[in-house]
């Protein structure tokens, strides 16, 4: 959790091509994610953002190319090493994916139970701590079906940070939230990044989030099936003159800047 003052990038993606069977989703992706970045994956619906995320966390194997985490290639390591690398990742999924037969406390405690030798009492205590960090103190014994969508997103966040991950991946964390909750969630993500010294990768379309917390990004295009650009979204807004990028960042209002 302390500084790893490494100058090289935390995650590097090189010549990545992703396919489902024969169906090409994206190709030739090249970008770097630095330590402590809040990195945004953006692009229209169905362009393969979730797919990219799932490749980066080691769920799917790339059709071609490499993903380096701390300079070791995720898919050139042995299965055991990859599992260990994956354990430094905390992930929240687009649909929440809280296990519905377990209480929030048991959900958050599950990674601790699987990967540490903590006593059951200690696990409950840590789960309680993580839930209180996301503002859900007192909801330990609730089932996922008994809480609201916004609370579910935060509970998923608590589970993602259970093992003090070095890299956090969020798939559309604020989709379906009201603007105030979305803003609070953004603040929470920023706070976690700063205090845990984590690197954060977010899939999102929320322009407000993109500009306020993102400091690096990649833009995927569904038509050409490759990335159009990468960099700080605020810089892209002023300096990138690709019409598709401008359209996206300005909610379709292709302004007179062009």
């Amino acid at each position, binding site marked *: *959790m*302390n500084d790893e003052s490494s100058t090289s990038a935390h995650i590097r993606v090189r010549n990545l091509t992703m396919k489902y069977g024969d169906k090409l989703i994206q190709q030739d992706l090249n970008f770097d994610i630095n330590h402590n970045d809040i990195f945004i994956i953006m692009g229209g619906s169905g362009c393969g953002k979730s797919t990219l995320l799932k490749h980066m966390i080691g769920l799917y194997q790339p059709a071609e190319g490499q993903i380096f985490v701390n300079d070791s290639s995720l898919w050139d390591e042995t299965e055991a090493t990859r599992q260990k690398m994956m354990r430094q990742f905390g992930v929240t999924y687009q649909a929440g994916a809280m296990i*519905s*037969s377990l209480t929030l406390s048991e959900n958050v405690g599950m990674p*601790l139970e699987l990967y*540490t*030798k*903590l*006593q059951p009492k*200690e696990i409950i*205590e*840590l789960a309680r*701590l*993580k839930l*209180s*960090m996301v*503002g*859900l*103190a*007192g*909801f*330990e*014994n*609730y*089932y*996922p*079906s008994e809480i609201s969508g916004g609370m579910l997103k935060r509970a998923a966040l608590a589970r993602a940070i259970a*093992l*003090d991950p070095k890299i956090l991946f969020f798939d559309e964390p604020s989709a379906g939230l009201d603007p105030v909750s979305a803003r609070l969630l953004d603040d*929470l993500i920023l*706070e*976690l990044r*700063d*205090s*845990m*010294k984590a690197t954060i990768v977010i899939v999102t379309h929320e322009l407000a989030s993109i500009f306020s917390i993102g400091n690096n990004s990649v833009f995927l295009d569904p038509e050409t099936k490759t990335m159009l650009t990468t960099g700080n979204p605020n810089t892209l807004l002023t300096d990138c003159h690709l019409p598709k990028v401008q359209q996206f960042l300005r909610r379709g209002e292709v302004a007179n800047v062009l």
Partner: protein
Amino acid sequence: MAEDVVTFHRQSKSILRVLIKGDWNISFGLQNPERFLAHIKSNPETSHVEFDASLLGAWDSSLISYVVSLNALSKEHHLKIDITQLPEGIVRLVALAEAVPEREGAAKNKVKPVFVDDLGSRLINVYAQLSAFITFFGETLLSIARLVKGTAVFRRQDLFIFLQDNGPSSLGIVTLISVLMGMILAFVGAVQLQQFGASIYVASLVGLAMAREMAAMMTAIIMAGRTGAAYAAQLGSMQVNEEVDALKTMGVSPFDFLVLPRTLALVCMMPLLTVYANVMGILGGALVAMIMLDLSWSMYIEQMMATVPLKHFLIGLFKSIIFGVLVALSGCYMGMNSGRSASAVGQATTNAVVLGIVLIIVFDSLVTIVTTVLGV
């Protein structure tokens, strides 16, 4: 190791300094705040708690958890605690953990109910379930009334899909079970009847048992396991996805759209399957009669025709229609009342099968009693 990472030093009579050092990792386990508590209890004059983290190495949640618990204990004992000497990340995470206080009344404690409580709540639950089921039945009747009036909204394709699935697609399993059923009946009868030289009555036994009881009942139990469970799972997962709510908002009655075609399909198919099961059972019995008892096919059939009047088939057929209603309704009822999680859908499926089979047996007993009293 456990003793090393935290030590306590007294700065003055009133100030307790907590020295945090070394590496903190959740894989070493959590620190117990007992020793801290012992320190402040043995020195009642303590009024301030400070931290010294100059020797701290790597840290993670285990330290946050420890600091949070010291914070809580200090508050409880009215001590001033100063955590600002800790690394900034820790201070911020502790602040985050304490930012949103526990919402009043949110906590749900698992209380173990007393026996009487438990019994009472179970009875209340049974009563609630019963009235809910009756309401459900009433809703379905209303839906049938709408069907007769022609105002019920559902997709005709759905009906055909369910008819296909309940009828032709279940023939395999119905064939297997019915043939075996007929053979078992014939075997059991043969052993007894042979002793009296009355083997020919095997035909009557098989015919009567299949026609009046077994064909309808076995088919119904098969359909409860097959179709009732499927109905509950389908409707239950539609609940999970809020599809049922979506139908309601579109002004479509979920009873018309979901329950009606399923019930109709099963009620249509159940008597047909029962007739088929009868034929298969009788064939199974004939197989045993011909091989074991050396009866000829024509003797077997003639004996059956002579001793098993048609009314037994009709009673079986009547029961099968009611069984169809019971199985479809228990499947749909459990599905529509399913909770909104994966495990709740599983529970609903189990309940549908159990309820279906219980209702089948109970109704069958009732019919047997009534027909015996009436002498039918």
